[in-house]
């Protein structure tokens, strides 16, 4: 069944992008509702896999933009931590620092980083899902990694030793 074959991967991606179960469920459900409503357009498994991830990323990113707009009103400016201005003293926990650094990446960089480095998608799969060229995906991943290295530079000495 198409749903069983793809739901885990779609949900995992949605969860990685959204960071919470309720949103991930909503994005996953929305993805399959939209896909099944247009299922007649697709006839083979491979097409469906690529296509459903195109829908999943679109639904997730659009949904997250709406959520972000809503939540921006609630959050204080003091809580916003920019990638380049993270102080190790203020936030000593590396895991939390990494999460903040990834969250603060520009949307395109973050999406590609999560899909490639975290969830293991290929650049071709990412390009197909986002409607860009594989070269664009590679370039964004390169920049995302550079920004993360920069944001976590004060940990570099410990890591590479």
């Amino acid at each position, binding site marked *: 069944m198409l749903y069983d074959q793809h739901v885990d991967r779609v949900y995992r991606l949605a969860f990685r992008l959204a960071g919470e179960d309720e949103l991930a469920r909503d994005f996953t*459900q929305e993805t399959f509702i939209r896909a099944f*409503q247009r299922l007649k357009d697709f006839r083979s498994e491979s097409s469906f896999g690529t296509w459903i991830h195109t*829908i999943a990323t679109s639904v997730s990113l659009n949904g997250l933009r709406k959520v972000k707009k809503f939540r921006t009103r609630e959050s204080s400016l003091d809580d916003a931590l920019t990638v380049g201005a993270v102080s190790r003293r203020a936030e000593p926990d590396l895991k939390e620092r990494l999460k903040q650094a990834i969250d603060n990446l520009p949307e395109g960089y973050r999406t590609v980083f999560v899909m490639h480095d975290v969830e293991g998608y290929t650049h071709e799969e990412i390009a197909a899902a986002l409607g860009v060229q594989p070269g664009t995906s590679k370039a964004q991943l390169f920049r995302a990694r550079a920004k993360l290295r920069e944001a976590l530079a004060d940990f570099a000495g410990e890591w590479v030793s």
Partner: protein
Amino acid sequence: MSDEDRMDALLRQLAADEYNRPPEIIPREQMWEAVQRGLGTGDKGLGGNGEQGTVLPFHRRVPGWVYYAVAAALLLALGIQVGRLLGPSPAQQLAPRTTQPDSLGPTRVAPESVSIGNPRRDLAATDSRSDDGAKGPPKQKGGGPERQLTPDVGNDISARAYSVAAAQHLTEAEAMLTVFKGDLSQGRMDAEISAWGKDLLSNTRLLLDSPAARDPVRRRLLQDLELVLVQIVQLSPKSSARDRDLIKGALTDDQVLTRLRTAIPVKGT
């Protein structure tokens, strides 16, 4: 391995282990039930008709019509209030600057000709298709009806701006798809079409995320357009004939082109 590579590898590992880590057990059954409910009742998506699923978040639990009803009530209240404040006299003074003859007729207005100083014609061109343009002239020519030009300035301008943007976008999309369809039937694939498609895809996604997508019909059209554009953007000279057939099928079966043409206001002469 360089220091950078080593740090990248460590970051990758740490991110995979820790960053927004999904639960081990994925709630497949619950999501499947929600998907079935969504499909069974014809729910059209995020702005759909409000399934009462236990796992659906707020924006899916609240019926879509509630938003429209609240918006309409607020607009009406604002209109009445501003109308009372301003009264007919100031509106009459504004009238010569804000009204234009209606000789062009109700819906024959080009999107690019729409301006903020010409609100009623804009609305006639881009809003409800069931609006009868014949209602327009008496309102504009008399002194009293001029009050309608002043009340809903903020909301109207915003709504109009999105409607105009949507109309222009749909016009461009229709032109692009028409050219693309012609190329497709001749087995050609123009690189410019792909670049054009990317631009349109970006704008489609922006519109989907804007108030322009609050209209359910327009939202549905934009969603279908987005899917077609994604397929076109991914098309390359190496793509198989089946890929092209899929796009052709999407254009034909979902009647995207026909719906686009229906949604675009007719240009004036």
